[in-house]
């Protein structure tokens, strides 16, 4: 498929999907919850334009990595809850390990062994 619009430059390109999958790997969550979770866990370092979550969620859903259903939110509003599928969990594992390798490699380059 064509290019996807990348989120703000604060985020490494292509990492949003990974962050969403990771967030959903702990619990079922709605869109706002995901945004809030990323913001808080990263100690507000990672700035995700909140709106860009939704196309990403759609894309992940179409890829079969996550699934969604409607439910009641804490304040009794209707909300759509997303959860990770089996395929999504597998995909997360692969992405995590390749990301770890990438970070590790960048780390070695940036801080040469003394």
């Amino acid at each position, binding site marked *: 498929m064509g290019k996807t619009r990348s989120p703000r430059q604060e985020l490494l390109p292509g990492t949003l999907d990974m962050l969403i999958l990771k967030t959903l790997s702990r619990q079922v969550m709605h869109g706002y919850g995901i945004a809030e979770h990323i913001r808080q866990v990263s100690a507000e370092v990672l700035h995700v334009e909140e*709106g860009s979550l*939704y196309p990403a969620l759609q894309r992940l859903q179409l890829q079969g990595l996550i699934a969604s259903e409607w439910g009641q*939110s804490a304040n009794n509003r209707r909300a759509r809850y997303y959860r990770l599928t089996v395929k999504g969990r597998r995909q997360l594992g692969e992405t995590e390990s390749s990301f770890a390798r990438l970070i590790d490699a960048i780390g070695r380059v940036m801080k040469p062994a003394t």
Partner: protein
Amino acid sequence: MAFLGRAGGLVRHVRALFGRSRRDDELREEIAAHLELRRQRLIDEGMDPRDAAYEARRMFGNVTAIREETRDMWSFRWIDTLAQDTRYGVRLLRRAPVFTAAAIASLALGIGSAAAVFSLADALLMRSLPVRAPEELVLFRWFSGPLNVFESLHGTGDQTDAGMSSTSFSRVAYETVRRDLARDADVFGFADLYRSNLAVNGRPDTAYAQAVSGNYFDVLGLMPAAGRLLREGDDERGAPPAAVLGYEAWQRRFGGSHDVIGRPLVLNGISFTVAGVMPRGFNGTLQVGQPVDVVVPLASYAELARGDNPDDPNYWWVLMMGRLREGASENRVASAGDLILKQTVAAARPTLKAAALPRMQVEPGLRGQTETRAGLREPLEIMGAVVCVVLLVACANVANLLLARGRARARELAVRAAIGAPRRRIVRQLMTEGLLLGLIASAIGLLLAQWIASALVPALASADTFAVSFSLDGRIVLFTCLLAILCSVGFTLVPAIRSSDARITTGLQEHARGTVGSRRRFSAAGSLVVVQVALSMLLVTAAGLLAWSARNLERVDPGFDPRNLLTFSVDTSLNGYDHVNSRAFVDAALNRLRSLPGVTSASMSSHRLIANYSSIRIARPTGVTPPPLGSPEAQAFRQKHRAWHLTVDDQFFRTMKIPLLRGRSLASGDTASAPAVAVVNVALATQLFGSAESVGRRFAMGLTPDAPEMEVVGVVADAKYTSIRNAAPPTLYSPYQQGPLNRATFEVRTEGDPLSLTASAREALRGLDDTLPIFDIRTQEEQVLRSLERERLFAKLAMLLGSVTLLLSGIGLYGLLAYAVARRTPEIGVRMALGAEKGQVRWMILRQSFVLVAIGLALGIPGAALSSRFVESLLFGVSAGDPKVLVGSSLVMIAVALAAAYAPARRASRIDPLSALRAE
């Protein structure tokens, strides 16, 4: 289509596509909820509630854009892109209606003719018999050396110097094969009854009849369209006579009514009861395209085909096919069949040596008999080749048009590339346009195909004896679509890559500079024109050759005068006349015809002239002893003493205006009781007696010692008999009173239009016997033209398609030159400002045209000389690669080049230097 992902992804996409508006609503709700939660949170954190809503939106981003983006994801991106490209393409095509019409018309013609030829080839060459498991069917054929292994053959035979082959067998061979091979195969027999007299409710009409064995329909596994089909019990002597109708005949003659079942019909004077109707599309197992109106049991063959004794082992008339049983070996069937055939022939002709006995062969029978099909292959191949050339030229033209437009759109494409459209996207846009053209053209082409196909049928076979059904079935539609896609890819790929290759800067500068145009792009268009010229040359040459030979054929002097001559035929044997009754009928008919007002003279002959029919006999001078039957010399003797025989009345030469050279004509006194006499033509006189006087000499007709002798009473000039193509054969005319007679063709010479006598001539014969069908009423001139139908049609076809390709090449050339002039306007302006003459400028443009045509001719002339051998079999009086025709077609090409260059050259010479330079 890798972007579709796996099947699961596809399903999710499709579901997403259909729930589009529901999803949009849900997304809106989800976003609203998000914004509300964020607002609450901000208020909780101490923000002013009035600012909170704004801040929530700010943090969220552009709601509309995000909804758009999400929505994009639900749909197939490529469908949207395709729809967009298509819309854009349609808009562009509509903005250039002349371009579009020219492209579509030329492509539609090319694709339509290709589809037509394909559908004909499919119907005639490829389609299997519409029966159960046709691949299990086998066909029996025999081959023999040069010696005749039979006396009389009914069916299709193929005779060469090396020997003969046919699929007709004697009854004893058929019955033995059927009985003895029953363990391995279900063998069935069938025979052609040709044109018969079918009377329903007392009204006579001609119909094509066949006889089949009782197991025929059962073994083929056919179901009736109405009533029942023939079965074993119908094919026994003494069984109540039953017949089945062909589906077409049932529809045409009986309106498809079920009342016809159980009704009587009379075939050649014998009554049958209609038992049922054959299924639609089934036309028997004889030659492809052979019509069948009525089918009767094989047991009635003897009565229907009068004259020959079907039990005679030397009369071969029944064809056989079989369905192999499971596990049966084709080889075993062939060898067992071979043995049976040899035994039956040896029993019937004890003089034949073992080596001369025929050999049996088993062939695949899934398409029925093969002879007609083999004859159709060549004309269909020629048609296919011609159509390919037209299609190529049409594609080259569309490619050229697209290329020209690509240049015109260079700026637009450059802009699109500059704002970030990927090259792939631009190529795809251009391909979509090409595909759009191709698909519209093929839709029109498909509609044309049916029409073109039926127009082509007369080139393959005489239309009135040819039943071929071609319909727009799936295979033809598929073929056309594939063709359209192939063409579209072909004609868009080069222009698309060229166009998308345009450097952004040059593309944007083009308008300003006016001299861009890379030489490469120009030469691409140039080589397309060269290809067009070369290909057109092939067709123009073929058209020239065919037209030339058609003209030659039409100018051939047949040796008689075909003008003002009405001809029609009767077959008295069909109504059970014996020879005596037939003669009486002919006498009475001639008397009636001669007394009609407007008739100058009337005559009869046993066969129609120039109708591809011949009756070949042996005529040898008395005193020459023929070699013994069955010896190798007998065959050579036969070849040397062949005489084409025609039984005529005493007015024949006068009516046909065949001049009598020596002796006397036949006379009314040459009756059955008078001495046997004959008139011969010059060719036969020379063959019989050399340069010696032949009047008064005697010859024998036949090889046996007791062959009847005749005296030559007169010599007439040579006249054509079987066809216009062949030289007048050695011909023998004998009086009809002195020989057997069971059919007659009448020739009536009229004062005015012969066709105006049709009604009264028909009435005259009907007065004698109103149950005798009269067929093939036409003028002799029409008869001659009909016999040349194939040649004439091929000539017309080639001329039509040749003109189309010429026109297309002309358009291609014109487009190229017009563009060149437009591009070079400033340059020409400079030249003229510097003192170039108008003539020089004109010549500059003309020269460009001539160079292209010269290269095209350099390629096309040798190609035409070679490829014209392809049509050699259709030529008459002119040889393939005839220099006259090659020079003629080259001149035509040059004339086209001149015509195409005229307007651009004129425009170039009228360029005003001042305004051209000012524009710069």
